[in-house]
């Protein structure tokens, strides 16, 4: 668990550097990725099978923390979101799906592919909800400020 959390944080760090984010902000997105991964792994046991809930809540954590970091550090939220969401991408499922197709195991391939798609949808929903919620809150804040 601790090893996985560290790995997720370091992965986000590496991707941040690849996307040319400054060292300080990369450190922030690494912390975000590690926290979100801890939430994700902590929840995996609580939901049966591949419900998508852990992925959804993990992505939601990334989204909310990234929007908050964007406010605190006056940076675009993308700077934190893009590196931190990478560890969640269901790459292994997609690979397994493709390998199954190559080995003529079409049913397994379809099942893995569909599961990967559903997980991707859960991730998008988490990010989207965080962004939409923060936008609404900020607009309300602006209005209160003006009025």
């Amino acid at each position, binding site marked *: 668990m601790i*090893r*996985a959390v560290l*790995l*997720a944080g*370091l*992965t986000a*760090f*590496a*991707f*941040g*550097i*690849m*996307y*040319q*984010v*400054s060292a300080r*902000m990369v450190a922030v997105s690494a912390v975000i990725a590690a926290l979100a991964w801890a939430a994700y792994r902590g929840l995996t046991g609580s939901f049966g099978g591949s419900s998508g809930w852990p992925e959804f809540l993990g992505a939601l954590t990334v989204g909310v923390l990234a929007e908050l970091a964007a406010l605190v550090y*006056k*940076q*675009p*939220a*993308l*700077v934190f*979101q*893009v*590196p931190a*969401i*990478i*560890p969640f*991408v269901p*790459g*292994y499922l*997609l*690979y*397994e799906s*493709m*390998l199954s*197709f*190559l*080995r003529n195991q079409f049913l397994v391939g379809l099942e893995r592919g569909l599961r990967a798609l559903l997980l991707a949808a859960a991730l*998008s929903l988490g*990010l*989207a909800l965080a*962004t*939409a919620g923060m*936008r609404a809150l900020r607009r309300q804040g602006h209005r209160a400020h003006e009025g």
Partner: protein
Amino acid sequence: MVQPNRDLSSPLGVLEAAADAGVHLLSAGGEVSRVEDTMIRITSGLGIESVEAAVFPTVIFLSAPGATLMRRVRRRSVNLAVVARVNQLSRDLAEHRIDLGVFREQLGLISTMKRYAGWQTTVVAALAGGMLCQLVGGRWYDFFPAMLAGALAHIVRQRPGSLNDSLKDFMAAVAAVIPGLVAAQWSLFHPGTIIVGGIMVLVPGMAITSAIRDGIAGDVVSSVSRVLEALLTAAAVAAGVALPLNLYLALGGRWP
């Protein structure tokens, strides 16, 4: 482009500065609403009102009374340093911390802006490949071939040249599979985790995230086209993995 013979603060000059900022943002992967907001912030900060901006992933329109500009964006890449820098510059300009001359000068420097050298990003791509391999269940000794896979994928994709982006992704995926195929000769390794570690370096994370953010902001046209961009990359990577792997399996290669 700085044009010293023109009055910089004329409406057209301001519009050009704003459009240049927009082009930099968009080609670095910024969201459409950010590009529009930034251009409007620049123009209204300099006193030009009733400016309309319409931005699509490949083109920018900017119009003020008496002047209209269109800019075409052909090459796009991921460079969050540029996004953050233009964001900062436009705020500074709108709040009159810098003037238009300085702004355009700084914008001119952005096109070559790279925080990290090629070898540095290659090293972190290698580390990313290794760590993603560990994250999807590889054993510790799978780390090293996965590092090689990540580095190869990154080097091939970042190679300068006029090649089409999808073709680059395809070739990068082919390169990323090779360490996995070599490692499959020993039952010690888990070639699957090695391959996944390598190709995850090619994940279109920026396109996906921008697609979501554009969709939430109501910019549905660019959201759809970014989804398509991500799907194209994913398809190119999948083809790049499937082709050598299929050949290898068809020739009776060893696979656990």
